[in-house]
Structure formats: structure tokens, C-alpha cells
């Protein structure tokens, strides 16, 4: 037997082939996913009156679902009174304009035409329709000005039943879900609280004061930036991944060790 034949017939060869095949499939998949992502391109825009510009953008991009005067249709809710904060939240997270219909609009990369200015213009238009919560100022959401410990208590009392203790997200009924809070900016977190997007309830300023909201933002950002002191965080979703690791890593490794310890010497053929 040549050496190559011996390698091919080695008892570990089939596992090596399997691992190689899996790696190959993974890489091809990853390449496709990368290719599918649209390139980021910002559009330069001229200075115009925000409300009027917003109206024209609205006509182009939003009207087909939200109705000619943003009064809402059977497919989308009214935008009268939702406020600039709602528009800023929905558009800056990429949820609006919505893609495929589904139980819930997911966070996604912004379409090419959406930029800060366009969002501001549409926000101004929607704000002009019937008022509503405004986009918070920078100081209002600055995590450094909040009290994380106090915010943590409020976070645990109000948010974690859907968003999980570390903001890792969780499932809701009928395909809806509470998204994870890892990518949300402080402004977006604030806006979500005051506008209650999708399945989320509204936490208005009498329920949770603006200072308390800032403290909650402080807690959320502090905890998510924290390096896990105990090693890999395993998604921070608790015992499910821990149990998986105990079996897939722990028991599997110990089974391999047992097989190794009790292995008989191969007979030379």
C-alpha cells in the first residue's frame, strides 16, 4: 500500500472528509450571504423645506401602505400622531420601509436612499400631521448621565420579560419576537420606549420618567459592552446553550477520551 492509500484508509479519514465538506459548505454559504448584502451608498441631498421634502419622500416610499394622507390602510397603521420619534426609530433601524410581509418587520440594513437627512424630513412630515413624541436630544439619552444600578432595576421590572436579562431578545407569540438590544443605539432604545413599536408597549413619561429612561439606557449599554468574566458568553441566553455545551462538548469529549483509553492496539495487517 502506498502512503496515500494508507491515509485514505485511516479510520479517521472519513471524519476528516466530513469536516472538510462541512467547512466547504459553510464557506460557500458565507460567500453567498456576503454577496447578497447591498453596498452602502449615501446619497447627497439638497437643502429643502423638511416637511415638504418629507411629504414627497412619503409619497414615493410610504404611501402605498400607509395611505395617501398617512391615515393608514388595511396593511399598515395610521401615522397620524405617532410622532417623529416613531419614524426615526422605524427608519433608522431599517424596519421601515418594510420588506416582505411577516409577523414582524425585522431590523435590517438601510436601503440605499435612506440617510439621516431623509429620515429627518419624513419625521418632520409625520410630526406635522398630528404631533407625537419627538426624537430625543443627545443629552436625554447619554448613558454617562444615567444611574446604571437604578436603571437595572427598572430594566428587570419592565423589559426583561420579553428582551431577556441581558437584552439578548426572546420569542413572542405567532412568530413575533422581542429583538436583541445589542445593536440599538441609545436614541433608538429611548424612541422604542416612548413609541412602542410593533409588539412593544409604550412606556410614556409618566410611567417611566425621562431620567429613568436614561438610567435604563445606561444599564443596557454598560451590560452589553461588558466582557464576559467567565469565558465565552454562549449567547447570554442561559441554561439552554449551557446544556448544549455540556453535552456536545463535555460528554462528547469524555466519550472520545473513554474510547481512546480503552482502545486496543490496531493489528498490523
Amino acid at each position, binding site marked *: *500500500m502506498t502512503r496515500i492509500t494508507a491515509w485514505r484508509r485511516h479510520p479517521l479519514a472519513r471524519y476528516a472528509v466530513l469536516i472538510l465538506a462541512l467547512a466547504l459548505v459553510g464557506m460557500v454559504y458565507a460567500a453567498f450571504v456576503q454577496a447578497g448584502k447591498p453596498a452602502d451608498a449615501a446619497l447627497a441631498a439638497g437643502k429643502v423645506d423638511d416637511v415638504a421634502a418629507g411629504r414627497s419622500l412619503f409619497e414615493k416610499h410610504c404611501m402605498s401602505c400607509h395611505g395617501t394622507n398617512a391615515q393608514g390602510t388595511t396593511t399598515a397603521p395610521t401615522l397620524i400622531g405617532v410622532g417623529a420619534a416613531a419614524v426615526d426609530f422605524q427608519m433608522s433601524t431599517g424596519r421601515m420601509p418594510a420588506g416582505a410581509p411577516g*409577523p414582524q418587520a425585522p431590523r435590517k440594513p438601510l436601503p440605499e436612499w435612506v440617510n439621516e437627512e431623509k429620515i429627518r424630513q419624513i419625521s418632520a412630515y409625520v410630526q406635522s400631521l398630528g404631533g407625537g413624541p419627538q426624537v430625543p436630544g443627545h443629552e436625554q439619552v447619554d448613558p454617562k448621565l444615567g444611574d*446604571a*444600578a437604578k436603571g*437595572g*432595576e427598572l430594566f*428587570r*421590572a419592565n423589559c*426583561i*420579560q*420579553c*428582551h*431577556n*436579562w*441581558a437584552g*439578548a*431578545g*426572546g*420569542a*413572542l*407569540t*405567532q*412568530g413575533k*419576537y*422581542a429583538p436583541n438590544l445589542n445593536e440599538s443605539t441609545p436614541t433608538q432604545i429611548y424612541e422604542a420606549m416612548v413609541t412602542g413599536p410593533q409588539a412593544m408597549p409604550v412606556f410614556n413619561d409618566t410611567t417611566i420618567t425621562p431620567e429613568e429612561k436614561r438610567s435604563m439606557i445606561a*444599564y443596557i449599554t*454598560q*451590560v452589553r459592552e*461588558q466582557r*464576559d*468574566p*467567565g*469565558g*465565552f*458568553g*454562549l449567547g*447570554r*441566553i*442561559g*441554561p*439552554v446553550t*449551557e*446544556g*448544549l*455545551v*455540556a*453535552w456536545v*462538548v*463535555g*460528554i462528547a*469529549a*469524555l*466519550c472520545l*477520551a*473513554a*474510547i481512546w*483509553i*480503552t*482502545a*486496543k492496539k490496531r493489528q498490523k495487517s
Partner: protein
Amino acid sequence: MSDLKAVPKAIAGPSNFLDERLGGANALKRNLRKIFPDHWSFLLGEIALYSFVILLLTGTFLTLWFKPSMMEIAYDGSYAPLKGVMMSEAYASSLEISFDVRGGLLIRQMHHWAALLFVAGMMVHMLRVFFTGAYRKPREINWIIGILLLTLALAEGLTGYSLPDDLLSGAGLRITEGVAISLPIVGTYITFFLFGGEYPGEDVISRFYSLHILLIPGILLALVTAHMVLMWVQKHTQMPGKGRTNKNVVGAPFYPAFMAKAGAYFLFTLAVVAGLATFAQINPIWLFGPYTPADISAGSQPDWYMGFLEGSLRLMPPWEINLFGTAQAGTLPLSVIIPALLPLGIIMTGLALYPFLERWVTGDNREHHVADRPRNNPHRTSIGMSAITFYGVLWLLGANDEIAANFHISLNWTTYAGRVLIFVAPALAYLITYRVCLGLQRSDQAIISHGVESGVIKRLPHGEFIEVHTPPSEDIEAHMRGKEAVPMLPVAEDPSGIPPKGMRGPVGKLRGRMSKAYGGEKIPLDDGHGHGHEEEHAAIGTGSGSGDDDRSITH
């Protein structure tokens, strides 16, 4: 040279002293030469044993700092996001262990990982014993001890999970309370007794602490000892193979071979536990926050070994019975009682009774020291796989929120699917396993009666191509020939159509029918139809001089 054979005085003196007083030399000599059979699956139980040792050691370390008290204090440790938050002393001291005690977090994580591996090790060990029939006479009592150990381990896990008094432990505690209070009539009494009044009270942590570090580990230790002693006295079962019978044990002596292996395996277990504890974070209680009964988090889950109970709760439709149509007269919350008690009851009672049920069905009263290969008792293997599937569906459903969130499936549909699968999947698993077992038996039969495919293609003078088969190696053949027909009761009716004694009533008839299905030889090893394929057999048996020539083609 003779000097080398003499025992050095420094050893001989004390050994003699001890032997003359304790008389241990004989027992030691006999036991050190105890033979242990070798198979990788025989080491699985040791995962549990060594995890237990690690648990005792790390647990002792943790007790040095842990304060089992529910007294409310303001946190003043080094974890900033909780500074000044009111919490119980138990939680504060757990945080102290994690952040302010040197090595504390590592030991805490080792303790938790070892706990997960402890139960997992017990479970894989139990499955090995089940599928190889190693619970049969004379080992039924040891099997029952094993079931007790598993049950106690679950209780030990539950109490330990509750001790740090973080938000997740609280959620687990709340479910424990819910189950206890759902019991008819005694529920409220039991709950008030357990929690010292209304939930959560101020006693439960210290009570669970006593159970967790004293009572349950004490019983566990005693039972583990009994388990080991019985195993030692009854000797370990062995896989069928060359020269292995019910009357001998083929393997390596305890000293030095098996001791070295066992010692190495302890180190492996320690390495896995320490490695996991170093690289993978477990139970990050600082993220959960302190427990208050008002808070609950998405993703609240028990540790994996309680997952099947969680799953059965999530699966259950919301049935409840109000006695006399009013809640005043009492409510029977079937939605809690059934999922909390039924699956646990089915699994644990089923496990405990199985050796006796099997004996009742097969009428097999002999001692067994040679293990069955799982395929050779297809009904037992199918029942086992069916039970694993039942458990697995419940277990999976215990994580249905994470499955729904991470794989974008509707949460409702996971529940609906689970409600169907819990009945359908075990039945399917049974059928499939049964067919697979028979298929594997047929493959054994083919190897015994036709030989192994050699990979050599031969062209016969008249143009036909055949593959040359070679006889299996001695070891493999002996391993396969270790097969024994599953015993059966004498069920045949006499000429006048009357079944034998004991098989007449409805129970007897059922027993007879079950015995007929369960027992007997389904696929005999030597099927006796090998003579029709002489060409294929060219290399098998005597007088096939061409066999060696054929084999030489490959080289």
C-alpha cells in the same frame, strides 16, 4: 540480584505492622487483582463518579463564602451595575464569590459544569446499562440504586440551582412552589411548610442549603458507595467476545491496568470540567439580577436535566377543573399536575420497574454477566429509543422559546408540533429502531454465513464477476456469536388448545402474547441457506485454496 527481589525494610516494616493488626494483605491481594472488562462505554459511569468528587471539593470551597440567608442588604461589591441594589445576602455572597474571591468564579463555574456533567454522565451510563441489559439478574438492586441516585441528583440540582437567589433561581423556585401548591388537598400545607409561610418567605434558601450540602449529598455518597461495592462484588458485565462466558470475566486486573485507566479518566474529567469552566461562562448570576417575585425574564430556563419537566409544562393545554363548578370549592389544576408528575412518573417508574417487567415477560431467571448487544434484543432497544424520544421531545420543548427566537419559527407552532410529536415520535422511534435492529441482525447473519466483503472482484471462467468474501476475524465472529435468543415463556398451547398454566386469565394471555412478541430468535445467525452461493463462498471454510490467492491480488 537477590537484593532486588527482597522488599525494602522501609516498606516491609510498616506493611507488616499494619497487616498483623488489620489483616488486610489477603483482601488487598485478592482485590487488587480483580479483573475489569474493557469497553469504552464501561467508563461512562465514571463521568458521574468523578464529577461527584469534583462537586464535593468545589462545593466545599463555595461554602466557605456563601451565606445562606435571605436578609435584605444593599450590594456593595465590585460589580458596578448592581451597586446599591437591594438583594438577599445569599445573592450578594454569590456575587462576592464571583467577583471578589480569588479563583471564586472559576470554582463556581467548575461546580456548575460538574453538576451538568454529573447528571449527564449518570444518564449516558444508565442508557448503556439499559441497552446492554446489564440490569438483569443479579444486578436489579444496583439498577434501582442507580435510579435513586438519578432522582436524588435531580433534587440536588434543583436545590443548588435555587441557592444563589438570582432571578433565574427564583423563577425555578416559583415553579417548584407552583407544582407543590397544585397538589390536591395537601398542596397548600406542603408549600407553607416548605417556604415557612407565604412564598417566597425568608426560610427557603437556608432550608435548601441544608438539603443541598448535607442531607442529599450524604445520601448520594452512601448510595454511590453501595453502588460501587455491589458492582465490585457482583463483578462488571462484559461484552460478548472470545472466551467470555457467564462464568468468567475477561479483562485487565484492577492493579495496575484498570487503576491507571481509571486514574487517567479522572484527570480527563477534571480537565473537561476545568476547561469548560475556564472558557465557557455558566450561570452568569450578575446578569440575571437579584430575585424579586415581581420580575421574570424571557429565556428563563432550568438546567438541562430539568428541561423535560419545563417542556411538559409548556406543552400542556390549560386544563383545569373547578370542583362543583366553582373555584371556591377547590380547583384541580390539571395543567400543572399532569405535566409535573406524569412524565417524571412514567420515566422514573418505568425505569425502576423495567428489569422486573422484562423478567415477568421473558420468564428469564438466569444470572447474566455477558451483556447483550442492543440489536440482539430489538424490543428492549426499541422501548429504550422510544423513551429517549419521549424525553427528547419534552426536553426540546423546554427550550421552545429559544428555538422560536433563534430559528424564526412561530412559538405557537413549536407547541402544536410538540403536542403531536409527544405521541407520534415515540411510536415512530419504536418502529424505526425495531427495523434497524433486525437489519443489523441480518447484517451479522450475512457476515457469519457469507463472510466479509473483501473488495476483491473476481472474474469467473464463464464471464461472471463476483466479489470474494473472506471469513470475519476471530474476535468479530466471537463477538457476534455471543448472541443469545431472547428467552420466552412456554406459551405453546397443548393439543386441545388450552394455554399452559399461568397464561389463561386475561393478564396471563397478555403475558403470553407479550412474551411471544418480545422473546424468541428473530434472525438466526446461521441461516443455513449459504450453500446456494458457492462462488460467493469461495473464500470461506475449508478447501477453498483459491481464497489466499485471491487475497493476494490486493497487495
